[in-house]
Each structure stands twice: as C-alpha cells, then as structure tokens.
C-alpha cells in the first residue's frame, strides 16, 4: 500500500524553485493552530506587501482547514483502521519567482466523497469573478454549518481570493480511497 506520496513528485513539472513552507505528517486541529503564528512569521519575512501577505494567509488558512476537514472524515472511516495510522497530509508553499506563490495540499479522501469535491472544483473553475461572488453569496446565505465547519464555502473562497483556476489531481489508490492534491496559484 503506497501511502508515501509526495507533493514534490506530483508537481515536479512545476519545478519549485523556492520552498517557503513545507509540512508532511498528521494534520490535526492542534497542529494547524500551532502553525498559524509560524506561518504569519514566515510570511512577514517573505512577502513585502501587507495586502499580499493577508491574501496568502487567508488562502492558506482555508486550504489547511480543507485538508483538516478531509482528514477528520477519513480518520472516522473503517479504512483508516486498516492503514494503522499511516495517514499523513501535506502542504507546501513555494515562490514562483517574482510572479507570485503556489500553495499545494495533499490528503486522503474516500472515493465515495470525491465526486462531490470534483464537481465543486470543476464548477468554480468554470466561473468568472462575478459568478463566483454570486455563488459564494448564495452558498453563504443558504448553507448550514456543521460542527466541523465545512459549509462548502472553502473551495469557492479559495478560488475567489486566489483569482486563478484551481488545479487538482485525484490518485485512486484502492477501491475505497484516493489521494487528493490541490494546487492554488496566487499572483
């Protein structure tokens, strides 16, 4: 069972010249909370303008909470038991020269859930800025929030704030689960 999947391998074609942040391992609520101050410090060092820093931090937070949401769903599945805790999530932030930044995330996902996710990303990718705004407002005013968050707003917000199409891959690893990677470009 290949659970040692590395975002670096998936996106080697993107030739990441400059890694600003990188993490691989268990992703829990406690972990990501402890990462926020570290991320803010790194952004302070790396990104000159405050506006850019805020945008990147905002998108990073949504991306991490998205991964956390998937991890928690996956952890509560029977499949997780079979993998004996060998389940890690990943994220990485890189600089694209002077053209902006990339954020990559990777997490396991149950195959029965990936169609909903795929449809959502394909839908936001087909929209322009005005359509995304309308979709966001519509979802905001009608959605119900679960205890774990996940009102489905995260993906729309990531697309809106990054102002780029979201790139993703779903690598099916068994009949039950897959590894999902998301790449977000911020200019």
């Amino acid at each position, binding site marked *: 069972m290949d659970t040692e999947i590395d975002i670096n391998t998936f996106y080697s074609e993107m030739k990441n010249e400059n890694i600003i942040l990188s993490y691989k391992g268990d992703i829990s609520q406690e972990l990501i*909370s402890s990462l926020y101050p570290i991320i803010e410090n790194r952004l302070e060092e790396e990104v000159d*303008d*405050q506006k850019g820093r805020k945008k990147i*931090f*905002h998108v990073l937070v949504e991306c991490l909470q998205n991964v956390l949401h998937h991890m928690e769903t996956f952890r509560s599945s029977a499949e997780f038991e079979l993998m004996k805790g060998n389940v890690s999530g990943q994220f990485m932030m890189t600089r694209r020269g002077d053209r902006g930044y990339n954020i990559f995330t990777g997490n396991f996902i149950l195959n029965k859930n990936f169609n909903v996710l795929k449809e959502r990303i394909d839908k936001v990718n087909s929209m322009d800025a005005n359509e995304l705004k309308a979709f966001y407002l519509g979802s905001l*005013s009608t959605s119900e*929030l679960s205890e774990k*968050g*996940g009102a489905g707003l995260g993906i*729309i917000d990531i697309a809106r704030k990054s102002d780029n199409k979201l790139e993703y891959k779903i690598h099916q690893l068994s009949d039950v689960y897959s590894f999902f990677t998301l790449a977000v470009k911020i200019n």
Partner: protein
Amino acid sequence: MEENLIIEGTNKTPVIKFYYENGAIEISGKSIPENSIGFYQPIYSWIDNYATKPSPKTEIRINLEYFNTSSSKCLLDIFRKFESIKKAGKSDIEVLWHYEADDEDMMEAGDDYNSLVDLTFRLIKV
C-alpha cells in the same frame, strides 16, 4: 440578566466586547477557528437574551483582520439575529464595518453582508 459578554482575543479567535446597557458591540481581530460554531455559540445566546430587552440604540463595530469561511457563516447568523431585533422595532442598529485601506477583500465582504441583511452598514476605512 443584563450581563456584558467580554472574551479576550487569541491568534485565531476575535476580541468580543458586547455591552448590554448601551448596546455597544465589538468584534475585532482574527476569526479563523476550525470549529467556529463552538466559538460563536455563547455569542448567539447572548444576542438572543439581548433581544428580549435591547438598548434603544445598538452599534456593532466589526474590525477584523481576517476571517475564515466558517466564521463568515457565523457573522451572517449574528447579523440576522440583529436584523430580527431591528424588524421588531426594538433598537436602532448600525453596523460599522472597518477595513484597512488596501484591503479590498475586507471592504467587499462588508458590502456583501450589506446586500444580505437589512441593517444599516457604514464602511469605514482605517
């Protein structure tokens, strides 16, 4: 019970200062908790109690640096609760939505809420 609700801010939850008697409400700082309902539940309860006997004037100061999407839903729920108080004719309510000069996203978010709820919004550049 006409009690104030004061909650200290953290690196992922905002400062909450809700003063019952004069209707001065403030949410400021960062709001990026993973479980935002857990954080906002006591605030909903406070507003439900406030709604029974609100101050004639309520001023809601929002001065957020960041908020995540799950907080955005909670903010809408908060505004909707105040909207009901206004519709019942119990209090004049104004939202003072603060944003930093270069933060167009935060300005737009204020505009978004203004379009979703029937409350008077003033967008204030800081």
